[in-house]
């Protein structure tokens, strides 16, 4: 199953590249001109998302580099330890929704310090794979279409991050110990 999905991932884009223009040509569509027409919009999209990204990245960096995040971690540690969430993975849990590369850095650090096959290592691996960079997705997706009021989606996203954290702790505990 794993090999099959990996194979599918490798083949997906080449298959797209063959199938879409072939179907286009068979329907007598000027594929080249059509592609260029669509690609032109791509640049406008990028320009549209820049202000949203600037706002978000500045706030994230200020929050993280000032040490405010560490303070928050020591503040919530007593609460999360009730749920058997090890304090070693709290930085990962907090950074994961904010910064994709930041989370990978913390994951690499945890794996190197505690070992990939330790409880912390397995838990961190599961957490990293099971949620997304929530704020990036929100910023880029809504920014691309110029939506400013994101309504309840932010709360839904944060609830899902929290559920992912609890589910990771529960299942890793259950399977590996």
């Amino acid at each position: 199953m794993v090999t099959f999905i990996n194979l599918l991932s490798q083949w997906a884009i080449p298959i797209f590249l063959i199938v879409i223009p072939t179907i286009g040509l068979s329907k007598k569509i000027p594929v080249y001109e059509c592609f260029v027409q669509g690609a032109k919009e791509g640049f406008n999209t990028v320009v549209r998302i820049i202000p949203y990204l600037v706002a978000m990245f500045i706030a994230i960096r200020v929050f993280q580099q000032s040490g405010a995040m560490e303070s928050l971690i020591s503040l919530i540690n007593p609460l999360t330890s009730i749920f058997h969430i090890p304090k070693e993975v709290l930085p990962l849990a907090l950074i994961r929704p904010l910064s994709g590369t930041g989370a990978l850095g913390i994951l690499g650090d945890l794996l190197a310090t505690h070992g990939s096959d330790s409880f912390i290592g397995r838990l961190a691996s599961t957490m990293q794979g099971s949620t997304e960079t929530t704020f990036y997705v929100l910023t880029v997706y809504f920014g691309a279409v110029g939506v400013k009021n994101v309504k309840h989606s932010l709360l839904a996203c944060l609830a899902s991050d929290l559920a992912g954290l609890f589910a990771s702790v529960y299942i890793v505990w259950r399977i590996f110990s």
Partner: protein
Amino acid sequence: MINIIWFAMLITGIITAIIKGNMEMITKATIEGAEQAVTVALGLTGIIAFWSGMMEIAKEAGLMNFLARLMSPIAKRLFPEIPSNHPAMGAILLSFSANLLGLGNACTPLGIKAMEELQKLNQQQETASNSMCTYVAITASSLTLIPSTVIAFRAANGSVNPTEIIGTTIFATTISTLAAILVDKVLRNFYY
């Protein structure tokens, strides 16, 4: 909500810096954050243009409507506001597939494409529609089958069995996606 979080991150950061006495850090973080935003956005330009071009052909060829019909059994429940056969449905299906297959740099362009289709159905252009909220919540909850980056990291850090976390990851991500759908369905009754 997002206004409060954004402001809270800035103000707690600045207060912490004042207490710790390293105000230069704030200036540095601001400049770096602004630069990073442009680097990330410009880094996406080529691949977004590529997928926008491919999607234009797919749309013209009627492929999006075809995919939309494929997805309609599930879609009617998740996205009741989208008319079946609408290209938005096809774009959503493609972006979900890219996420599930872990096609890293295809996910954002296809996701933006889906949002653009959803925006065509949106009544108030500056406020998110219910369909957009559901779509973004599901995407941000992560759809993963094989967490390939994590597996590579584990292998690099001497794991005996780097793939052993696939099962736990699929379990956790399923729960987080279900939570996203559930909270979205409940909360949409309180926001207009």
